[in-house]
C-alpha cells in the first residue's frame, strides 16, 4: 500500500478538480471554498473520527481510506453507512443540529481526510448561492440514498435486500468487509455468505 505521507495538498487538489466538474460552480468560489479545508486528519485502522457524545464540528472530505458510520445499540453496532475516497462525511444529525452525536465514525482502513469547520462551511453557504445549490444537490442525493436503504430494510427477504444493494452499489462488495455489509443489511454474516 502506498504511504500517503502528506496528503493534504493532493486532497485539496482532488477536491478542487472534483468540484470543477460541476458546471455552475465558478472557479474563484471553488478556490475560496477549498482554501477553508485547513484541518488534516490521518487515521489508522480502528481509530475513531467521531465518538458518540461528541458534537460534530467538521465536515470531512475523504482523500483515501474507508470508514463506517454506526449506531451503538447495546452490544451491537448497527452499521448505517460507509465513506470511501471522494466522499464527504460527518455525523450528520449532530452536524446540522449542534447536538451530541449518537453515531460513531470509525476507520476500517488507514484513512486521510481534510476538513472544514461547521462554522466556516455554514458562512460560505450563506454567501455563495452556487455553493448552496451544490450542497442542496448533495443533500438530495443523500436523501434518496437513505430512502433506498429504508426500503432495503423493509424487505422481508435477505436475498432481496442484498440484490437491491448490489444493483445500487456494485463496487461496495469489493471494498467493504463482509461483516459490516451484513450489519448494514440487517442480516448475520452467515446469511450473507450463504447468499453470495
Amino acid at each position, binding site marked *: 500500500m*502506498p504511504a500517503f505521507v502528506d496528503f493534504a495538498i493532493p486532497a485539496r487538489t*482532488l477536491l478542487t*478538480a472534483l468540484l470543477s466538474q460541476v458546471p455552475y460552480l465558478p472557479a474563484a468560489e471553488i478556490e475560496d471554498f477549498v482554501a477553508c479545508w485547513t484541518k488534516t486528519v490521518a487515521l489508522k485502522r480502528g481509530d475513531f473520527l467521531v465518538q458518540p457524545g461528541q458534537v460534530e464540528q467538521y465536515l470531512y472530505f475523504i482523500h483515501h481510506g474507508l*470508514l463506517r458510520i454506526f449506531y451503538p445499540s447495546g452490544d451491537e453496532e448497527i452499521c448505517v453507512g*460507509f465513506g470511501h*475516497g471522494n466522499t*464527504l462525511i460527518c455525523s450528520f444529525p449532530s452536524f446540522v443540529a449542534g447536538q451530541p452525536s449518537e453515531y460513531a465514525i470509525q476507520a476500517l482502513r488507514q484513512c486521510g481526510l481534510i476538513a472544514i469547520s461547521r462554522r466556516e462551511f455554514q458562512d460560505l453557504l450563506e454567501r455563495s448561492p452556487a455553493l448552496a445549490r451544490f450542497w442542496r444537490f*448533495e443533500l438530495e442525493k*443523500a436523501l434518496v440514498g437513505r430512502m433506498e436503504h429504508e426500503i432495503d430494510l423493509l424487505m422481508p427477504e435477505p436475498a432481496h435486500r442484498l440484490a437491491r444493494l448490489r444493483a445500487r452499489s456494485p463496487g461496495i462488495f469489493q471494498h467493504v468487509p463482509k461483516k459490516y455489509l451484513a450489519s448494514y443489511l440487517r442480516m448475520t454474516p452467515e446469511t450473507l455468505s450463504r447468499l453470495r
Partner: protein
Amino acid sequence: MNSTAFLTTLQTATQQLRATAQAEFEPLDLALLNHQPAPGSWSILECLEHLNRYSRYYNPQLAKALTKPDVVTSQPIGYSWLGRKSVDMMRPDNRKKHTTLKHMNPSGSRLGREVLTEFLAHQTELLDLLARAHAADLNRKAVPVEFFKLLKLRLGEALEFVVVHQQRHLQQALRVKAGLQVSLAC
C-alpha cells in the same frame, strides 16, 4: 464467422474505443485522470498506459505479420486452443480478475496527458492494421505472444485479443470515471 464480418466487428469496436476515450477522458483534469480509486487500484491513465504497453508490442508485431503477402478473399475464422483461451479470458464480460505481468503494470507511475494522446494514436494505427488485414490470411499463425515468444497466435486471434483486452480496461477506466464525483455519506 467469416473474416470480413469478423474484421468489420473489430473495426467498429476500435472506432468506438477511440471515440469513447476521447469524449470521456479528454475533458478531465489531470488530477482526476491520475486519481486511484483505492490504493493500488489503477487510475484512468494507468488503465490506458497498461494498454499502451501492449500496443507498443502488438501493433508492430501485427504490422510485421501483415507485410507477408497473402492472396485471400473471405474465409471462416478458426481458433487455436491458445487463441480461444486468450480471447475468452480478456472479454470484458468475463468478470474474473487476472494478474498483470509486472512489466505491464504501470501502478504508481507518474503519468501525464501524453498517455491519452498515445492511446488514441494506437487506435488509429490499429484501424489501419485492421483495414490491411482484409487482404490477409487471418488463420495464419503469425504473432508471437508477448510473454512467451515461442508461442504464436493466429493473426485473427491476435487482432481480437488486442481489441477485447482494450475493451476490458476501457470499461475499467469508465468505472473509475463514474466514481469521480463527490458524494455525501451520512
